[in-house]
């Protein structure tokens, strides 16, 4: 940026840092993910309603719903729903712990974030493995 010095000369001034200066600290990632998965779960709630309405409507409607869920888009939505549910669940439990005054110490913030991410990955993989065994086995 070009500015003026005290004696009136034009000089180059440094710009103050904008968004690009920030790295991705784990706590920031965790916070953004909690909100993003909450929004994703709101979309997923539509699938829940569809499933219930289909189950209440009869075999034909239920088959239509199943057909969508087994399509590539349906499976992708279900995978996103599973991962989002587990992230929001574990992240939410940490939020409840925070509200009671636990896990706030600085040294615990990043390790617990990694733990939540690992638990999310493990639980999602476990559920999909169980689902695969249920369908194929």
């Amino acid at each position, binding site marked *: 940026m070009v500015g003026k010095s005290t004696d009136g000369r034009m000089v180059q001034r440094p710009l103050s840092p904008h968004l690009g200066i920030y790295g991705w600290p784990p706590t920031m990632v965790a916070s953004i993910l909690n909100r993003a998965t*909450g929004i994703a779960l709101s979309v997923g709630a539509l699938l829940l*309603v569809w499933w219930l*309405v289909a*189950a209440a409507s009869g*075999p034909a409607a239920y088959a239509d719903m199943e057909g969508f869920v087994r399509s590539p888009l349906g499976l992708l939505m279900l995978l996103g729903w599973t991962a989002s549910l587990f992230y929001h*669940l574990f992240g939410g439990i940490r939020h*409840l712990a925070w509200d009671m005054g636990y896990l706030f110490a600085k040294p615990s913030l990043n390790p617990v974030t990694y733990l939540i991410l690992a638990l999310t990955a493990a639980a999602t993989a476990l559920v999909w493995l169980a689902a695969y065994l249920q369908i194929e086995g």
Partner: protein
Amino acid sequence: MATRPTSDQIHVMRSQLGRVRGLGPAKSGAHHWKVERITALALVPLSVWFVFAILTHLGAPQPAVAAWAGSPLNAALLLALVIMTFHHMQLGLQVVWEDYIHHARRREALILATRAACLLLGLIAAVAIIKIAALAH
């Protein structure tokens, strides 16, 4: 000559408790925050139960799913899940709009629309569950 009153001379004809109640920038105290936590707490066991329930009914035909969902215990738990989900979802999305939509009227309209959509979707799901339970034998 009259002196201007300083802050400790201003007399408010109202108790401290009365000033606290219903004031603050949110105008509604901690109710929103509290209910968001209470619904989250309820959703911890309910969503874990729901994932297990889905896993054990993958690929099951509609009559089997309806028979399972129609038992009084499962129907009640499904109703609890739906009520807590849509209540929590509406509270969570409201905070998202409050954070990012700066145009006041647009923000209020979006919050109202979100509440209406959540109420309607929740009612549709609830009616579906009750219908399944009523038809189950």
